[in-house]
């Protein structure tokens, strides 16, 4: 159902400049509070043959959409360009790009052969230094996977200029929603991070909730009411085959999440009205209880090294965030602000916890350090919840639901600086996004 597209990266050795160019002046420090977006140009790539004509333009548009979508870059549109790039090999007229203040210039070529093989080459230039930034790269894939190639080029550009890992060649699994609030139909869907290539993974015959990727992105855990009771399922993304993972009679299970090595699943299990955390060994299916308290313990998330778990508990009387060892034991509370805290998610960098906060009738997505300090609220609305981290830990995607009888859920993303709040296009209503790791 979903084709795995193999992409091969190869370094092109073409009068490449010394690596020291990477430490040149073309640089965005995205830890700074406010930045002026860096102006750049990405003219249509040069088609090496007539079959590549349309893709040459489409690939440039996706690269531009990725870069400008970060809020860190600002594209100088083609109608302002002085030079035309008509040959990938010819020297660049830097003066023409300086004149329009394009600090970065991306050029490329595209060729397509009769078998549908797509070859893209690109270079990134530091216009004001008059040299390349990093080496030219060649990416090989299929015409069907052209968007992935474009995302990979954009990831390279983003990475070279910011010094951070990219996140454009990634996917999002989410719950597609249709119908009114009291009869909402939900089904699992997967798409590229930018909303392209939506594919449905389940039908809407049963309520499905909160999908989560495995560390390699090929499996998804989710909760389904297929049997009439909430149970955790594991779905294989490629085959769409699924199996129930947890089905103890007389219990309900939900809020699953993989450990970073993919061998364990931590989840919530309700029995006799009490919800505690359990961990399951995926290969043997055996479960072990991690918490044992009359309070609600839910929404667990592992630290990237797998040694700790952050979760939500109302043991203090209101829902707050706690961290404990992955093997269980006494948790320590990390949230102390006014309000109710939930759905904590450990950043892939390990330094921050994203969470949902309810305060004074509003919902917020926020981040705090793992000791609970430096809490920052990034959003505010009638209902924001369920943060998920981009693979590089710079962006958070979440659910925003509007108020009232016509209320509708959509996906939004926001930088961890609180800037660049954007709706993610999904067609139908959408909730519970989970961002995949960067694809191979």
């Amino acid at each position, binding site marked *: 159902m979903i084709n795995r597209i193999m992409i091969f990266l190869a370094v092109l050795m073409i009068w490449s400049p010394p690596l020291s160019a990477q430490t040149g002046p073309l640089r965005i420090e995205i830890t700074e509070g406010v930045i002026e977006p860096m102006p750049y140009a990405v003219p249509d790539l040069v088609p090496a043959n007539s079959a590549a004509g349309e893709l040459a333009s489409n690939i440039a548009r996706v690269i531009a959409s990725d870069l400008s979508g970060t809020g860190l870059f600002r594209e100088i549109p083609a109608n302002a360009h002085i030079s035309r790039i008509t040959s990938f090999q010819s020297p660049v007229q830097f003066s023409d790009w300086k004149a329009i203040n394009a600090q970065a210039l991306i050029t490329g070529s595209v060729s397509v052969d009769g078998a549908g093989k797509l070859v893209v080459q690109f270079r990134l230039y530091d216009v004001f230094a008059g040299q390349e930034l990093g080496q030219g790269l060649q990416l090989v894939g299929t015409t069907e996977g052209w968007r992935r190639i474009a995302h990979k080029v954009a990831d390279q550009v983003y990475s070279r200029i910011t010094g951070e890992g990219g996140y454009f060649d990634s996917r999002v699994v989410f719950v597609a929603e249709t119908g*009114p*609030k*009291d009869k*909402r139909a939900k089904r699992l869907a997967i798409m590229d991070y930018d909303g392209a290539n939506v594919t449905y993974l389940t039908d809407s015959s049963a*309520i499905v*909730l*909160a999908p989560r990727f495995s560390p390699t992105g090929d499996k998804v855990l989710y909760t389904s*009411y297929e049997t*009439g*009771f*909430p149970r955790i399922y594991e779905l294989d993304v490629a085959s769409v085959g699924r199996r129930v993972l947890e089905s103890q009679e*007389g219990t*309900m299970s*939900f*809020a699953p999440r993989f450990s970073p090595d993919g061998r364990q699943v931590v989840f*919530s299990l*309700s029995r*006799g*009205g*009490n*919800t505690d955390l359990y961990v399951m060994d995926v290969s043997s299916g055996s479960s072990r209880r991690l918490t044992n308290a009359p309070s*609600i313990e*839910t*929404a667990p998330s592992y630290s990237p090294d797998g040694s700790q778990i952050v979760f*939500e508990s*109302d043991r203090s009387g209101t*829902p707050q965030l706690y961290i404990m060892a992955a093997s269980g034991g006494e948790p320590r509370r990390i949230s102390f602000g006014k309000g*109710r805290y*939930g*759905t904590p998610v450990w950043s892939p960098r390990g330094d921050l916890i994203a969470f*949902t906060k*309810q305060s004074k009738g509003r919902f917020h997505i926020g981040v705090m350090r793992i000791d609970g300090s430096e809490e920052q609220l990034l959003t505010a609305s*009638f*209902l924001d*919840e*369920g943060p998920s981290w981009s693979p590089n830990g710079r962006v958070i995607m979440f659910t925003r*639901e509007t*108020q*009232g*009888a016509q*209320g509708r859920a959509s996906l939004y993303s926001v930088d961890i600086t609180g800037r660049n709040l954007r709706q993610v296009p999904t067609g139908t209503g959408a909730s*519970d996004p989970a961002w995949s790791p960067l694809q191979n």
Partner: protein
Amino acid sequence: MILLAGLALAACTNADRFNEDTVELNGAQGSAGDPTSPLYFQETVGDRVLFEVDQSSLTGTAMATLDGQAQWLTTNPEYTAVIEGHADEQGTREYNLALGARRANAVQEYLLSRGVAGNRLKVVSFGKERPIEICSEESCYEQNRRAVTIISSGLTG
């Protein structure tokens, strides 16, 4: 005294509303005039109890309704029940699932304490997934913070 008055009023209202012989609402079967029918249970005994914000303890009104449920279940032993716990939309999805589980369990415990056999009752939480009222105001929220006893025939499996 107050509890009894509340019950009498509810019964009266329901009787007025359901004087037609055969009605089917939310899948409940049978005739509203037949005291052994699931529809009678739903409409006359009262199939749901409501909860305060973020609470799962039973109010006096709720306990009076559940006394009626327990009595009906005792006199109609061929039926089983699934108790659905629900929450309003103010809260995260996961917390509300757990809260709905608490509410369904509170109802189950009460029915058990009134002599209903444990093997006739199952519980499930829908969290905030299935509101019956869809506005974003307290008038709707108070109807959505509920536990509903759904009657079915045969074993709950």
